[in-house]
């Protein structure tokens, strides 16, 4: 299945790209995606300095947490902690 991952703001520099489609085995969870991100992009989660959303909801707010099963077409966004303008 394909997960769309976007690297926003300063994360774009760390990941070396703005976005990409990540292929994961069917039934993968957020935990597997986090593993892939750490290995392939050097982005380690959880990190108090980073924020991550799945379809617009914070990962930390999902009832299943990192056990949340992903579905093809899910949108993930990663960015540094925001602090107000």
């Amino acid at each position, binding site marked *: 299945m394909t997960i769309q991952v*976007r690297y926003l*703001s300063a994360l774009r520099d760390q990941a070396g790209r703005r976005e990409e489609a990540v292929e994961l085995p069917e039934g993968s969870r957020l935990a597997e995606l986090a593993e892939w991100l750490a290995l392939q992009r050097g982005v380690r989660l959880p990190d108090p300095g980073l924020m991550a959303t799945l379809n617009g909801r914070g990962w930390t707010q999902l009832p299943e947490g990192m056990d949340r099963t992903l579905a093809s077409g899910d949108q993930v966004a990663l960015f*540094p902690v925001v*602090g107000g*303008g």
Partner: protein
Amino acid sequence: MSYTGGYLGKLLRVDLTTRSVRTEAIDPRLVSLLLGGRGLAAKYYYDEIPASVGALEEANKLFFFTGPLTGLPLPSTTKFQLATRSPETRRYLCSNCGGDFGPRLKMAGFDALIVEGQAADWTYLTITDGKVAFGDAGPWRGYSSTRTLEELKAAMGGGKIGALSIGPAGERLVRLSYINVDSRAFGRGGPGAVMGSKKLKGIAVRGTGKIPLADPVRAAEIQKAAVADLKVSRANHTKFGTPQYLEVINELGCMPTRNFQTAYFEGMSKIDAHAMYEHYLEKNYACYHCSVACGKTCVVREGPYAGARARTEFETIGLLGPNCGIDDFGAIIKANQLCDELGLDTISAGCAVGLAMELFERGLITTADTAGIEARFGRPEALHGLIELIAARQGIGDLLAEGMSGVREAHPEWSPYILDVKGMPPAAYDPRGFHGNGLTYGTSTRGACHNVGGWTIRAELQSGKYDRFALQGKGPLVKGLQDNRAYVDSLGMCTVVRGAVGFSDDPKGDIMKAATGYDFMPELMGIGERIYSLERVILNREGVRRKDDLLPERFTKEKLPDGPTKGRILTPQMYDVMLDEYYQVRGWDDQGVPTGETLRRLRVQELIA
């Protein structure tokens, strides 16, 4: 209570009508209850500005108050506070600002400056240590706010000074006028028009004195550790400044676009932080004693706006950019520069232009109102032209210069397109995407402001305690953020660095003891709550009740039409759930009036007796 550092214990009062000056002692009991800055300014406002005083009347005053940390050798001790009657909201205004003025005022020997009365002719003030002089600002009439700062510096003979000024918009009593403070701003609420009404073009201050510091050795240790912390924790601020949030807020479906008609801007990649960094960034700017340097001076190097220069911030880009449908960063810098020079708040100006563009596209105003400008979204010429019309009070600009309250009063039928709370238009977040932010706008002391009202977005996304679209729990969340901000605004330190020295909602550390000799830390959140409720008493006196804490129609009646938050809305029923919970946790009744028990518990009763 006695303090061995941080405070000078006196204020300077200048009467422009009589050209008289006097020094007054500040009661240490008030300091112990209200800390300084925003807290003390609110108390003086309460005592001296009755509800009957209009913002542009002679009886209105400007209360500039520093905090105990202002000017000390600690991180970013740049801030000071203003209280006045707001021309834009017609109510109490609190405003917080960086630059050099606050620190220099303290070095001149004063914790605060109160300016009252009305000059007969255009005037500027200079303060050199304890000496005040009145200068003739007649020749400076019509000067931009930036040129006026230069004239003030020249009048002082150069060197290390702090200065504040207004531009032509303030002179013309435009209710969106800001005060330029060393190129930072008392931006919101129109305080530039208060100076304009007093024929006060600017103030400059030089101080050669030393601000007392209780424990210099410990303060130096705290400073060193904080600088090391900030180098890592605020690295993105140093590189990108607040524009780093543009792409994020857009991706989350909260970016005001075309007068808040939607919350996702398709042209974001042309105006985000990377676009700024790669093509427009000239240099960083740091306020007084700040190692972060989050200010970004940007310059347009080629094209029709070549030579334009401004320090663009997240809110400015959001409201002058997407909210006006503009995806040309050069045009945004040009608009920012125009606002700076003419003396307009970039947030309120961006909202006013966005409103005018929507009215134009709906056929409610025409080129006869806009001096021939095709005022459509996405046209830089329209953005720049409308800004100039507002500052000059020409055509539709004369009406927009009256602020959202003035526009609604003249055209109540335009209410579906007018965005404001208590007369102040919103910052660059759409609360349909973060519902706590709606409560922030509704209950902020000064109107739809994200700072005073409590910036919820991080907590709504990351804390794990709140869902961004949930209603329950937002009351205590917003209250805590507001109380935190109220005490931080009273310290004299910038909010960007507060985390590095323990100023959270559970304050920790010994910075206050090192600075003042007294450990304020356990009391700070309580002081913040006291300040917030004192401000509410002021607002109540000026007529504010529950009806004034409600959100504009667009947020409560229109679902977002597209983007990541498509279909989201914050209906009046949903909003009421949050507002009821908020009033309850604050100890206010169902009309938003603090109960007698609350006022006694917080010792506000002692302040208003």
